[in-house]
């Protein structure tokens, strides 16, 4: 295990500008510079061109997007069997170095190998070999990035996790599941009618969402691997805003069946429906705190939409946001300490974070005007959200301090409502 301290030892200061990345085919557009970024070099893997996936470029883009790493270019031919020249790599300013290879096996699989070195100490940190089917080569690259991230930071990486989002184009609405870098998207649902509010089940196997295919808002769950769908809330009026409890057994939803939009709890199959909030106002966008005992939600009971919280057993409702007149779409970090939400200031809808401890203040972490739908990465280090850029709906990731942002790849269609899946797949 490489201590963070030894890697950081070489970081006297960080350059004020980030070079345009050479792996531009991934359209990772980084803006901003973090306070402490580890300089790392990822050499092109031997024979990766023959594998059909730019393994090293995927790893580099992942690490850069995390905000924790700064990529140091340079290289030459290296693989996991090489003995790097420490003086040379120290001269380039790299504190860590990874190299590897892809070898086609007789059965059609690829053996993807890599090694990670601590350049400062001149020692080996990690080495792996994985034989994968060709369609899993991107996943293999993301797992390498996860290993590097974990070895060098001590925290789990999120690069091999998945995201879901909705695209609109050509008169169709499509719910897609993609790698966390936005690539490799696969269609989960195609519809002529709108789809909103996708939510991953905590085990990553199902998505709950709202579909308007029957000319009204109805909540469905869908098994991602099999495509099996089930209606879980189709009451009179609108059914929307599904949220899973951490144990996957309960769904919180917004129903208008008793008139007015109010929050209800139900079993995961739609059974045992009970009303949670009882106001004359709009109550919606429920989300469970990680402990499963508290629900954060949006209500305009005070005259403007604000974020509140209430126990899952009901009872006293406590207001959480006080600044401004429009605070919506709460997302709670996995450690329960930070809330991301959208706050309106003038005509700008901007992503904010707020410490959930006593006295936490809202903090704008973007300077864009149409931010929507924040969702935390499962390690709590990044937030994915939708915004508008060059007249299109796009997805961005940002570090919690707002210093490192990356625009995710997307095809021609407008893309919105991102939601980050859990660890594992």
């Amino acid at each position, binding site marked *: 295990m490489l201590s963070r301290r030894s890697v950081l030892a070489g970081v006297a200061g960080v350059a004020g500008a980030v070079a345009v990345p050479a792996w531009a085919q991934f359209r990772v557009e980084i803006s901003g510079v973090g306070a402490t970024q580890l300089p790392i070099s990822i050499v092109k893997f031997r024979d990766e061109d023959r594998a059909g996936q730019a393994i090293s470029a995927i790893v580099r883009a992942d690490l850069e997007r995390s905000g924790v790493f700064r990529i140091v270019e340079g290289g030459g031919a290296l693989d996991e069997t090489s003995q790097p020249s420490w003086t040379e790599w120290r001269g380039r300013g790299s504190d860590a170095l990874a190299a590897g290879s892809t070898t086609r096996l007789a059965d059609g699989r690829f053996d993807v190998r890599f090694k990670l070195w601590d350049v400062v100490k001149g020692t080996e940190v990690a080495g792996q070999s994985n034989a994968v089917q060709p369609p899993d080569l991107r996943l293999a690259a993301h797992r390498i990035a996860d290993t590097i991230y974990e070895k060098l930071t001590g925290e789990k990486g999120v690069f091999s996790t998945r995201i879901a989002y909705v695209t609109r184009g050509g008169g169709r609405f499509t719910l897609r599941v993609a790698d966390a870098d936005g690539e490799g998207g696969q269609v989960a649902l195609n519809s002529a009618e709108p789809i*909103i509010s996708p939510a991953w089940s905590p085990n990553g196997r199902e998505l709950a969402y709202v579909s308007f295919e029957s000319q009204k808002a109805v909540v469905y769950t869908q098994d991602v691997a099999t495509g099996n769908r089930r209606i879980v809330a189709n009451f009179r009026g609108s059914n929307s805003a599904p949220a899973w409890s951490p144990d996957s057994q309960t769904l919180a939803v917004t129903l208008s069946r008793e008139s007015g*939009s109010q929050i209800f709890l139900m079993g995961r199959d739609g059974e045992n429906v009970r009303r949670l909030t009882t106001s004359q106002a709009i109550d919606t966008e429920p989300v469970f705190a990680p402990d499963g005992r508290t629900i954060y939600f949006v209500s305009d009971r005070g005259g403007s939409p604000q974020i509140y919280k209430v126990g899952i057993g009901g009872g006293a409702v406590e207001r959480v946001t006080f600044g401004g007149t429009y605070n919506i779409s709460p997302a709670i970090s996995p450690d329960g300490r930070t809330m991301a939400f959208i706050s309106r200031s003038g005509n700008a809808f901007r992503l904010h974070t707020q410490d959930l401890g006593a006295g936490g203040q809202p903090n704008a972490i973007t300077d864009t005007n149409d931010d*929507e*739908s924040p969702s935390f990465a499962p390690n709590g280090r990044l937030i994915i959200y939708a915004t508008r850029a060059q007249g299109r709906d796009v997805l961005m990731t940002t570090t919690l301090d707002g210093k490192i942002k990356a625009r995710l790849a997307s095809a021609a269609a407008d893309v919105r409502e991102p939601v980050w899946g859990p660890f594992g797949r």
Partner: protein
Amino acid sequence: MKHATKLHLTTILTALVLAGCSSTKLDTDVPVESRGTTPGAGAGAAGGANAGGTTQSQVTPVDLTKGTQQGAASNLPRVVYFDFDSYVVKDEYRPTVEANAKALAADRKRRIAVEGHTDERGGHEYNLALGQKRAEAVAKSMTLMGANETQIEAVSFGKERPAVQGSDEAAWAKNRRAELTPR
């Protein structure tokens, strides 16, 4: 009442011919409803047709892309527009709501969906709830005007199905609406 109905049918036929809707199939026993226009308020009786909230220059649009299978119901005005951040059914749309309510009262088998919509500003879910509030306001007005609660379902599309594209007040004003759709 029978007399008024006959006159009104004639008015509609005339209007359709004038509008060039020669291909529109007309149902001869369309249950047209009285709007309070007096038999004497024909062409030339200036200013005499405002009692029921309609005017002589009113043109009721027929949308052939929606709801035409519903026959007479498609002849009713179907859209109620709202002010920014408001759920109040304005007086100018009272005739629209009333005409639809009376059609429901006249035929208890008839069903209608009131679909609330918002402009594009703000979140998807909060807008869905705002649209629901608009739809429920219209639905409640209709029940007060004689429709049965069970005939109406208030639903919302939030900002997901704008009537017009655009990001200015003109577009937003057209999108803040409730549509009355026969089901």
